[in-house]
């Protein structure tokens, strides 16, 4: 696997996660309120995102590479570590798993409780703004990932294809099933994306700060599995710690055994 493949996979998976979350919001807005307002909100947000890409794309590409790598590396490292932290806490039982169906139900209930109000050509303003904000916020993350990954690896085209492919696949699945994409293994995806963001962040951050990796770009191919192995080891340790799922299962098993004996 070359660094281009790593770039494609990292961008695609990160964008799938963001797209699943945006799709859940649009589906909730459409189901609970009004499909025309929800799709108008989504289209409005996509138009704003297109303007942002058109404005920022050339600007990001024109920045000096070392400065870009330092800033983007720092941000990706912070994002990646936060994702990885949440993913490890979830995998070890210290935090509830991300449940797209539950989030959909909560958003559906919140959206159903609001009064209907027409604004101009939009039949339902609440449904429009709910969909607009959801797609814009999640879309901003997609734009950030595509532009920064693409600019840093001198391949915005490949990053854009990966991001667009993710959005098309997820949006297509959302339209086809018209229900939250709960079958997407979002918790596992977030774990993998956390590893990728952390690895790319460490690689670019160190280069931006003036360090030189042994083996140049090939160092990424060692960093990714090393961080994955470390994260999996931390899951094992955290499962055994107080409050972890390993301890809980052991306690349940011990209680069951004690119950059988008594």
């Amino acid at each position: 696997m070359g660094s281009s493949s790593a770039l494609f996979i990292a961008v695609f998976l990160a964008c799938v996660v963001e797209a699943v979350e945006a799709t859940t919001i649009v589906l909730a807005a459409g189901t609970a309120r009004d499909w025309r307002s929800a799709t108008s909100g989504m289209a409005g947000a996509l138009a704003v995102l297109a303007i942002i890409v058109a404005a920022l794309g050339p600007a990001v590409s024109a920045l000096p590479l070392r400065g870009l790598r330092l800033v983007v590396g720092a941000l990706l490292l912070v994002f990646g570590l936060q994702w990885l932290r949440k993913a490890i806490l979830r995998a070890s039982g210290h935090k509830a798993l991300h449940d797209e169906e539950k989030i959909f139900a909560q958003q559906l209930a919140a959206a159903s409780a609001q009064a209907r109000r027409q604004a101009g050509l939009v039949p339902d303003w609440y449904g429009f703004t709910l969909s607009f904000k959801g797609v814009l916020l999640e879309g901003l993350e997609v734009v950030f990932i595509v532009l920064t990954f693409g600019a840093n690896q001198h391949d915005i085209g490949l990053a854009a294809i990966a991001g667009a492919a993710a959005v098309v696949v997820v949006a297509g699945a959302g339209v086809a099933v018209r229900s939250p994409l709960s079958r997407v293994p979002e918790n596992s995806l977030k774990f993998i994306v956390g590893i990728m963001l952390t690895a790319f962040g460490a690689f670019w951050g160190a280069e931006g700060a003036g360090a030189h990796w042994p083996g140049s770009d090939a160092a990424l191919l060692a960093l990714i599995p090393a961080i994955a192995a470390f994260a999996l080891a931390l899951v094992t340790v955290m499962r055994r710690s107080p409050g972890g799922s390993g301890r809980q299962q052991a306690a349940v098993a011990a209680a069951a055994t004690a119950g059988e004996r008594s």
Partner: protein
Amino acid sequence: MVRRIKAFGAFWYDFVIGDDWLVAAGVVIALALTYALSRTTVPAWWLLPLALAVLLPVSLWRGARKR
């Protein structure tokens, strides 16, 4: 107006810093140390992976303790 500025600041704090400020502070310090080391003849690439190996378990411990 003040409420909007506060909400704007809170959005960016949540977006960039997230749940644990220690991670963001640790990353900035590690990058500064990497820069300082890169000005010498000593290789500096190992510093960030070392920082990750320390920051992630500490942040996890803080997260599990908070629960």
